């Protein structure tokens, strides 16, 4: 695929899924600690999400970095909006902001903060 086709393919994933996680490995088998942390948070919140394994395709791995203007993976999109990488997602989750964002976007979630 050309760069433009990759860009369009990524755009389609982002537009057609409420939540998309670009990650290393799959949600069943994350292959990076940072991707794994985001999976654990999404699983904890019990939301439906789509995962894209960037290790399957080098052009997607590079393409998503260009698409988001963000140099690292994982990357989380919610309703078409780039939310952040692992650190941002974890901080938002711990502060309850991620739960608020999901709720404000009408995405069903188990909105509880992390147990103390």
């Amino acid at each position, binding site marked *: 695929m050309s760069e433009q086709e990759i860009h369009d393919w990524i755009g389609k994933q982002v537009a057609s899924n409420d939540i998309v996680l670009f990650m290393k490995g799959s949600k069943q088998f994350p*292959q*990076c*600690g940072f991707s794994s942390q985001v999976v654990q948070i999404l699983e904890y919140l019990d939301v439906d999400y789509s995962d894209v394994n960037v*290790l399957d395709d080098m052009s997607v791995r590079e393409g998503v970095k260009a698409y988001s203007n*963000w*140099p*690292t993976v994982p990357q989380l999109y919610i309703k078409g909006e780039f939310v*952040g990488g692992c650190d*941002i997602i974890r901080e938002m989750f711990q502060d309850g902001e991620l739960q608020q964002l999901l709720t404000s976007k009408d995405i069903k979630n188990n909105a509880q903060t992390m147990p103390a």
Partner: protein
Amino acid sequence: MSVEQVIREKLNEAFTPERLEVVNESDKHAGHAGSPGTGTSHFRVTIVSEKFDGLSRIDRHRLVNEALAQELAGPVHALAMKTLSPGE
């Protein structure tokens, strides 16, 4: 200069931080998928700087990513970061 020193220098220059910590965590990730095993692939930084005042998390991280764009396009695969303004 080591990658760690370059990171430190660039962050000092970009943010004149009140506090700066740069930790090389590459050893912790040696051998996992996509890890190059170079010893300079994974870093954790903590930056406390007035430059972050009033900025969202994403905008803060984007500033750091920009300051280290060359390194992130090269040897550095992962950059964990904590970005705080002095009052936080």
